[in-house]
């Protein structure tokens, strides 16, 4: 057994007297696609920010790529890639220039950058558009670019926060095919989504309700456990939340 890519043990995050994440424990293996599901406000983003070393846990501890998220944040950041919902790429640069910019931020040499660019261009079919300005490209291409940038430094884990929101059905599937290839090459993928059909593409998923993981298993076992036909049904059963008035 290789060491887990992500190990979280009883993570808690409090903001004042509000507990956003309660007692989060999970382990994700290298090369696994892990779906991190939950309703709006369930605490997904807070949990993800702790795992990325962007937010200090109130209690508990977690290791990502073998490094402590509270004390070794710089090591954590070098070993992970992150694609946020509002991905930060430069519209007035070309695809190639964007890739060059981010690879120099990650400290890749120009030779390494060239090689990586070639690999990614072939792998994700970017060749034709490398010299195009990002602003002239449809959303699907921007997503491909944002993903390429998130994995430019060959991180051990890539975090994707709702990467497919709002794109057309074909682009959405092409994006997942990119995820499959990346995971097959050994990178761990930690992904959130509101599309329940995408939960089925994950090796394992967890569903978070009010700051706590309610269920964590393979999609098939979860469906069986709840005698449900689809993950959508499971989600509805679990996440029908009890919002309380103040």
């Amino acid at each position, binding site marked *: 057994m290789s060491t887990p890519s992500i190990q979280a043990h009883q993570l808690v995050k409090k903001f004042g007297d509000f507990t956003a994440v309660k007692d989060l424990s999970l382990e994700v293996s290298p090369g696994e696609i892990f779906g991190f599901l939950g309703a*709006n*406000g369930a605490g997904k983003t807070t949990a993800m920010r702790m795992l990325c070393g962007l937010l200090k846990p109130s209690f508990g501890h977690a290791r990502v790529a073998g490094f402590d998220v509270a004390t070794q944040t710089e090591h954590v950041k070098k070993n992970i890639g992150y694609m946020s919902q509002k991905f930060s790429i430069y519209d007035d640069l070309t695809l190639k220039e964007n890739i060059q910019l981010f690879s120099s931020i990650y400290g890749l040499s120009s030779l390494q950058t060239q090689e990586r660019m070639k690999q990614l261009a072939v792998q994700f079919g970017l060749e034709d558009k490398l010299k195009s300005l990002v602003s002239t490209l449809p*959303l699907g291409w921007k997503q491909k670019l944002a993903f390429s940038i998130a994995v430019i430094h060959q991180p051990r884990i890539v975090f994707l926060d709702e990467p497919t*929101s709002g794109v057309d059905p074909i682009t959405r599937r092409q994006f997942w095919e990119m995820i499959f290839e990346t995971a097959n090459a050994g990178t761990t993928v930690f992904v959130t989504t509101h*599309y329940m059909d995408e939960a089925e*593409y994950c090796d394992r998923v967890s569903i978070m309700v009010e700051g706590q993981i309610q269920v964590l298993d393979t999609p098939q076992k979860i469906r069986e456990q709840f005698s449900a036909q689809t993950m959508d049904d499971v989600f*509805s059963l679990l996440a029908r939340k009890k919002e309380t008035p103040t």
Partner: protein
Amino acid sequence: MVQIENLSRHFGSVQALDNVHLHIEKNQLFGLIGPDGAGKSTLFDILATLRLPSSGTARVHGFDVQTKANQIRKRIGFMPGQFSLYQDLSVLENIRFFANVYGVAFEESSPLIRDIWQQIAPFKHRPAGKLSGGMKQKLALCCALVHKPTVLLLDEPTTGVDPVSRKEFWEMLQTLKSQNITTLVSTPYMDEANLCECIALIQNGKILAINSPAAIVAQFEFNLFGVQSAHSNALINPLRQFEKTQHCFAFGKMLHLTLKDACATEKDIVEFLEKQGHKNVDVWPMKPGIEDCFIELMQS
């Protein structure tokens, strides 16, 4: 209630809407289904008289959007794609503000908003910015209905909202149907299409199809098969090499496969896969959904 003829709108060299024709009947729940960048918001902005068409005409309630904007504004309720309420005002203050702007009183028991109000009333003193995503959308809908509009324009009310809150929002739209209101709602979620009486599929500014969801599905031309094994994703590339394959895409735990050859059967597919060394594969003919139709129309 809404009549759109030859409507086009460009921004510089970008054609946001390309010769759109659309008719929405009175009291219909009409869905505009398409991805980001398809032109949905531009169409909403024109109907809400916030932007002008480059060419063509649009009428709401019989009034032309270019010359009768004021008449239209009194009669429509508009919920834009961006959350545009006052985050630091409470739920109740937001509703009262919108009522005041329209010069009406807020009536909790008005049939149009009674059900929605019941759901958000427990939070009436909470600042709008501190509501969950689903609750924010319910409040925005309530504000859009406070002046009793006859046409409701909802631009992506469920985008980024979790599946449970999405369902609750659609349940509310269904109950509005009986209240003499015509609703145009846009969404990138294909599964919401079936909740509308009539839908238009839109991509790159062009309407791909307009009809009832059932009629659109009935027009699907290809033989569609479901394919599933313990590792369905590993079958995508092999199936795309199959000479009879039109398209193959992942759909949750299974794959959807369309064949060019109308005579080909599930046997041909299984045989092909077995020759490639893929055993224990289930293949069965299946009925298409709106998402299958959208994929085919996008590529034709």
